[in-house]
């Protein structure tokens, strides 16, 4: 694989380097390891640009490492046909996937849709209510078909889907959703107390944030504790551990609905679970909240814990020179430590109170501009911006009004 850059770190990570998986992205053959998600697989192959935005066709990369991924949607083709709009962060890699980018013509790099941006103000929010009114039937006959073709993301495969799906029910005393440190501990405690317990985890292994943590629990490092606890839970007869299962809603009288995704060799491609529990414990962790600034959607701009996750869990280096705009100290230090371990150069670290001006670059971020607390304008080259601002500590351009087009 000499023509694609290899961003895999030489060692570490919860991947099995003995099992190589083949896949392709927009026709280019790539390889990854068992244990990768599509996101980490693409990043390992240096592929940051993976999508185009819905309206202006802005280049989009991988922002997160979980279900909160807003940008990186692709079409994945397997033995069942193609499935559009999958988040790369949610696809667990298996051998032989064909992955294609969406919403671009003729290609991801040279998308003519980007010229929509030249229309600028005419396409402001809600523009369609105010335009295309005349002549009378023109909306239906001319404008609507054009807009319909521009809209939508992936293309749905029109052939019937021959995969099997199933619906099943479960009942328990305690249902724990999420298998991070809190979820694992809750499930173990409930089960040891005699309760029939179900632990649901959307990932394919238990552990949640433990899988990329450097902390230790009970004298063990986090990943070992997660593995031990997983083993302990599996050994208990009154616990059902459901991985690859996403609880998506709570309905009347404590009904939890969840989707289990099958893996290679399973009869069912997916199973819809309806679970009634006496008690439900949500241990789902948090989703990182970014700060909004111009250019914040460029490939190479990534959430802080996502960066930690790609480095520690998947042994992938998401860049070579980083700007750190992480407001919370704990998260900032964790991200910096991870990047230092991966050999990523830290170009700048923003302090809370700094004013972010913009990130620039055409298909990938290449520079970052901000004003420091003395009002001095700073600019540095970079290919990675690490980004997190839960409490809005950074100041956005123009004080608070930011005109962001998507």
């Amino acid at each position: 694989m000499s023509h694609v850059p290899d961003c895999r770190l030489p060692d570490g990570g919860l991947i099995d380097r003995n099992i190589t998986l083949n896949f392709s992205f927009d026709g280019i053959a790539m390889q990854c390891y068992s244990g990768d998600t599509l996101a980490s697989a693409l990043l390992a192959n240096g592929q940051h640009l993976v999508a185009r935005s819905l309206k202006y066709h802005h280049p989009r990369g991988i922002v997160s490492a979980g279900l909160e991924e807003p940008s990186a949607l692709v079409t994945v083709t397997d033995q069942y046909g193609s499935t559009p709009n999958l988040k790369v962060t949610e696809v667990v890699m298996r051998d032989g996937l064909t992955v294609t980018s969406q919403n671009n013509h003729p290609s991801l790099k040279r998308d003519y849709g980007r010229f929509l941006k030249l229309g600028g103000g005419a396409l402001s929010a809600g523009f369609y209510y105010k335009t295309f009114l005349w002549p009378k039937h023109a909306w239906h006959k001319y404008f609507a078909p054009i807009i319909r073709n521009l809209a939508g993301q992936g293309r749905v495969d029109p052939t019937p889907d021959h995969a099997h799906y199933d619906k099943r029910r479960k009942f328990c005393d305690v249902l724990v959703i999420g298998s991070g440190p809190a979820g694992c501990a809750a499930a173990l405690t409930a089960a040891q107390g005699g309760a029939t317990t179900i632990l649901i985890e959307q990932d394919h292994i238990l552990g949640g944030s433990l899988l990329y943590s450097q902390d230790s629990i009970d004298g063990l490092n986090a990943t070992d504790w997660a593995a031990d606890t997983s083993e302990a839970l599996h050994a208990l007869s009154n616990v059902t551990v459901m991985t690859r299962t996403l609880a998506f809603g709570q309905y009347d009288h404590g009904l939890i609905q969840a989707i289990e995704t099958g893996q290679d060799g399973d009869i069912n491609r997916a199973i819809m679970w309806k679970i009634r529990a006496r008690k439900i414990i949500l241990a789902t962790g948090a989703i990182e909240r970014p700060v909004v600034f111009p250019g914040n959607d460029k490939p190479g701009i990534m959430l802080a814990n996502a960066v930690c996750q790609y480095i520690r869990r998947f042994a992938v280096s998401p860049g070579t020179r980083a700007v750190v705009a992480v407001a919370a100290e704990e998260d900032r230090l964790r991200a910096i430590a991870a990047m230092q371990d991966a050999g990523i150069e830290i170009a700048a670290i923003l302090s809370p109170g700094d004013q972010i001006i913009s990130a620039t670059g055409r298909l990938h971020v290449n520079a970052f501009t901000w004003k420091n607390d003395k009002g001095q304008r700073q600019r540095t080259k970079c290919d990675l911006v690490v980004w997190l601002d839960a409490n809005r500590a950074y100041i956005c351009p123009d004080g608070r009004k930011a005109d962001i087009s998507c």
Partner: protein
Amino acid sequence: MLLITCPHCGPRDESEFSYGGARRIWPDHDANLDQTETAMQDWHQTLYLSSTPSNPSNPSGPLTEIWYHGGGCECWVEIIRNTKDHSISNRQKGHAS
């Protein structure tokens, strides 16, 4: 999906039941024989409006209603359900169809 406690079968899923609507208190008239104006008004009131002012048929709050447990004991079950949040405050009684 509601979880309705049937007095005979215990807590069962909504899908086992058919809805019978607000509990109606039928007027004390012979439907075939009594054609007086009062009888007509009483029937109209019970069938289309609220059985009694104190028992509104479409309250935003507690509603006394009946469900047919076709997927279980085949009895009508009477419950009080709050239409604002679907909480079932107390089970009343089941009666044979």
